[in-house]
């Protein structure tokens, strides 16, 4: 990828005194939704703060669409960052919060007012815009922060735990908004600890553990690189599970075959999914089995997270 097209980390390390933030990160983030996943203290927020210049790298360099974060005048024309800090300048209404910070872009009153109204509408906060932020609920504060981050129509949107504090309806709306923004060609970088939501929204993931990037890319590709160590689990529901099991035991790429706990299918562990699917297709064509469904059982973020990082996964 051209450095001017994406977000590039070149051998970036960040130390807070003796404490490691992130170490030797080499990343290239393309357009679409990229989710940073990892346990608390793994370096997700540090990566986000590095790409927006809130902290400076101890070593290496970062470029966002070719712009160094040390150049805020250029960077924040094209980037917006919704941090996880639940704090606001005192005494402002939701409208003023967005409008007054838009004026820092040296926009005219009319332009700033227009963009403020548009951003408020996108996060469905128009009705509450005249109230002071101090009176907002957690979910409203989260949405007004999001509106402030997208108000200037950035090309790169960085969102640190953006779904925190949102009720299920608002979460669904926020996810739809992220998808829409990614569909418009934006780089949307999200950190989230809710892995099933990460699965729903991510085009690619970056997995972090103890300040190191342990995996990156599309989740299927990441999972594909782990087949030798962690054979892919595939759930097959068919008319003759016993016959299928017998055929599979003879295959050297099959690591295990188990009856699913509902006894309605087989859970197959394979180190070579392509050869497995080939065999399955052949049996179906020969009429040996009648296939009801077949689907990978551990090709999701949660499973990959478990294999690579371990420990819970639901609250990374």
């Amino acid at each position: 990828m051209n450095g001017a097209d994406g977000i590039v980390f070149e051998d970036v390390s960040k130390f807070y005194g003796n404490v490691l933030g992130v170490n030797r990160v080499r990343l290239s983030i393309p357009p679409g939704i990229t989710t940073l996943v990892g346990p608390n203290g793994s370096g997700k927020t540090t990566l986000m703060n590095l790409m927006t210049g809130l902290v400076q790298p101890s070593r290496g360099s970062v470029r966002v669409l070719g712009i160094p974060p040390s150049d805020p005048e250029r960077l924040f024309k094209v980037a917006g960052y919704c941090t996880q800090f639940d704090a606001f300048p005192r005494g402002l209404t939701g409208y003023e919060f967005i409008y007054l910070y838009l004026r820092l872009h040296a926009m005219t009153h009319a332009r700033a007012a227009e963009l403020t109204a548009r951003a408020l509408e996108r996060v469905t906060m128009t009705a509450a815009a005249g109230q002071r932020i101090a009176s907002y609920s957690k979910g409203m504060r989260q949405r007004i922060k999001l509106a402030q981050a997208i108000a200037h129509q950035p090309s790169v949107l960085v969102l640190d735990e953006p779904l925190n504090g949102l009720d299920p309806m608002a979460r669904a709306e926020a996810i739809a908004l992220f998808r829409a923004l990614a569909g418009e060609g934006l780089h949307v970088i999200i950190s989230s600890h809710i892995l099933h939501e990460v699965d729903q929204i991510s085009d690619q993931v970056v997995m972090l553990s103890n300040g190191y990037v342990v995996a990156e890319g599309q989740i299927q590709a990441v999972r594909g690189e782990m087949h030798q160590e962690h054979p892919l689990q595939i759930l097959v529901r068919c008319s003759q599970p016993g016959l299928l099991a017998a055929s599979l035991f003879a295959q050297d790429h099959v690591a295990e075959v188990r009856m699913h706990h509902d006894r309605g299918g087989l859970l197959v562990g394979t180190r070579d999914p392509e050869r497995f699917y080939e065999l399955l297709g052949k049996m179906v064509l020969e009429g040996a089995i009648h296939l009801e469904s077949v689907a990978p059982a551990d090709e999701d973020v949660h499973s990959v997270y478990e294999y690579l990082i371990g420990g819970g996964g639901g609250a990374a």
Partner: protein
Amino acid sequence: MSPAVRLWGAQILAIGRLELKKNFSFRRALPLYLLAALPLGIFGGHAIGYARGWTSCHGTEDLTVFAGVFQLFVLRLVVFFGCVAIFLNSFRGEVAQKSLHYYFLAPVRRDVLVVGKYLAGLLTASCIFGASVALSYGILCLHLAATPSAGLAGPAWHDLGTYTGITLLACAGYGAVFLLLGMLFRNPIVPAITVLVWESLIVFVPPLLKKISIIFYLESLCPVRVPFSGTGKLFAITANPTPAYLAAPGMVLLAVAIVTVAAVRIHRMEIRYGTE
């Protein structure tokens, strides 16, 4: 004017708009208003007391008393603590409230941010304390016109601008110092107290060291020399005063130099609220 300068000008105005909204919010400004009301209370009370016949006054000493109150109380305490409240909050207050990052995430050069915040603080302090001094002195002059020394009132009006100007210079000097301290120290109260002690003890140090003080230059500009006596001598700066043509631009240059240091320093500033 170049596009860059126009952009920075527009951004400084936008920063000013935001800062003034915060600075003049009732809760934040109330202590400043109370502080600024103190000199008004002193001279307004004196004028009212005289008008009502509660006190007698020949008016002859009033201008000297004003000069003494201005030097010992207004400059050293009212303006000093007012600037502490306004300028320490410029950066340190925002770090404490965890809201500084909104500025850092705007397309504004950080040095432009420093200048914008400084000018907004200066405007706030100048409006509040400049108005306080101008009104206090105006009240004194009106009162003077009603005393047996009414002849002094006319010439006294000429010093209104001087006292107000000295107040603005005090805001500029102390403001720059506290803006920088708020950026350098996690707990800037200790260095602020150190500045207060230095400014108070300046009378005890050799003449050369007296010049490393804001109050020295400000008092050099005062139109009335105060013949301190008794315990008041403790506050008399005995070094040769600096001529006004040096003291006033010197104070402005000092403020510019300190703000420049702050503008350089802010480039190294990181948002790490958790460790602040």
